[in-house]
């Protein structure tokens, strides 16, 4: 699944660590590909990607596509931020239920005209910072 990429003229405030395993996810995300692991034994996806299936504990996991669309379960706008995020505050974060059945939490692409509402439709996007990507959601087009 290919996601829209929004390029930002800034560095990540708190860059995620990357392992030999998660590198696959972050590298793909950087190219707009939205993926996670799926268990070959029980067939269930999990997110964030994991080298062992949390459901059946099989290590036979494969990379698979995530849904690019979903609905917003809930959201908040964070005004009191940790020191490294102070320059970005206030910023919005939310919980998204992807159409393919995965729930995740991510940054929301906020703006003066955006009205966030639980159960509204959203689409996933890539925020391409100078030093790496993050996944985020915005109101569906």
């Amino acid at each position: 699944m290919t996601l829209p990429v929004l390029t930002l003229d800034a560095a990540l405030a708190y860059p995620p660590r990357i392992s030999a395993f998660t590198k696959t996810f972050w590298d793909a995300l950087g190219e707009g590909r939205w993926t996670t692991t799926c268990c070959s034994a029980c067939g269930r996806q999990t997110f964030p990607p994991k080298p062992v299936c949390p459901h059946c504990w099989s290590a036979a996991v494969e990379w698979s596509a995530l849904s690019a669309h979903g609905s917003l379960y809930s959201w908040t706008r964070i005004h009191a931020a940790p020191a490294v995020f102070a320059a970005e505050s206030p910023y919005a974060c939310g919980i998204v239920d992807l159409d393919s059945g995965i729930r995740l939490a991510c940054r929301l692409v906020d703006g003066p005209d955006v009205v966030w509402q639980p159960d509204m439709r959203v689409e996933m996007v890539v925020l391409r910072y100078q030093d790496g990507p993050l996944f985020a959601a915005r109101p569906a087009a």
Partner: protein
Amino acid sequence: MTRRVALIGTSAIPVGRHQTADDAALQTLEHEIMTRLVIEAVQDAGVDKKDIESLVFTLPRPYTRQKYFHTFLMGQLRLSCRGNVMEVMGNGMTAALAFDQACNDILLGRANVALALGINMESAVPAAEHMMSSMRTTGDVDFHTSAGFTPIAWYAMDATRYMHEHGATREQLGAVAVKNRFHASLNPLAQFRKPMTLEDVVDQRPIVEPLGLYDVPPRGDGAACLVLASEEVAKSLGRPYVLVRGRGFHHDGSHQISDVPNDMIAFDSVREASATAYAQAGIGPAQIDLAELYAPCTIVEILVSEAIGLVPRGQGARAAMDGETRLGGRIPISTSGGLTSRGHPAYVTSLYNYVELADQLRGRAGARQVRGARFGLATGELGNYNAAMVHVLEAMQ
């Protein structure tokens, strides 16, 4: 006969600003506070130094310079023990775990008298700096913290969802803060005691929308010591005591958020833990006379009160607005003033909740006294109530 555990003594300093800045000429030293509290709690219990066989400490904050604080204090007090000396840690559940572990030591026969105690100092560290550490405790440090999530942001999302599903209003949430401030005004241990109005709460600046400054916990320092004993010891002392009648624990198998969509505001773990504790106590929620909930934000008190059956689902906010959970109401909640006004020195917060229940169930709560209080309930938690600990206590005269 099965052993039973009693809470027989308590001590605490008022929650507030006790920590000194690094450059202050005179420093507040944690062990000086803690040793004094041990003496006070042991005197309150009516036992002797030689009776103490286990000490379960809450882990100090990283800002406490003295490491291995627990065994350092053993030296300060020249206490030798056959039971257990340890520090426990479980984020917000830390102090509930200390209490629970002290119960275990008594039930296992390792101790007849055990202390659950600790100190949490953090107020001299600015909030934005403190959050650099706390933001790493909730969620996945790589996949969530990188997006800017903070601990109370998760509770804020609970509030958004609750308001969406049940039509609750900002004012109804704020009623919890007003009610707790009123309770705190009657509690000498409380950090914020000046009464306030609903307007005061709703007018505050947003912290994590929809929650404002008075919907979220203040930061503060605290320290407390509890004395627990076998019921046999408690009976021999000839004073009122508090019996631990039920204990329950549940972890829902997720950390902050489940990738399998669930009802995040049902707080299943505390529902499960309370069911276990009620069953052990042989009572139901209708028998509870008061509850001291680990509820960092107004919304959390509402959700927990519903999950443990004190208030019907979706009615918690309305119940707070209608005064049902206020002193004198149908089921008083957070008579100490709760985390929003009594204060929230996180790693020892639950110790203060047990102090309040001990005061109430021994009839010593003064103007806050819940008349005829027999059964009290306390909760502890971590994450977004992903795990919960529940204790049901009973007054024994």
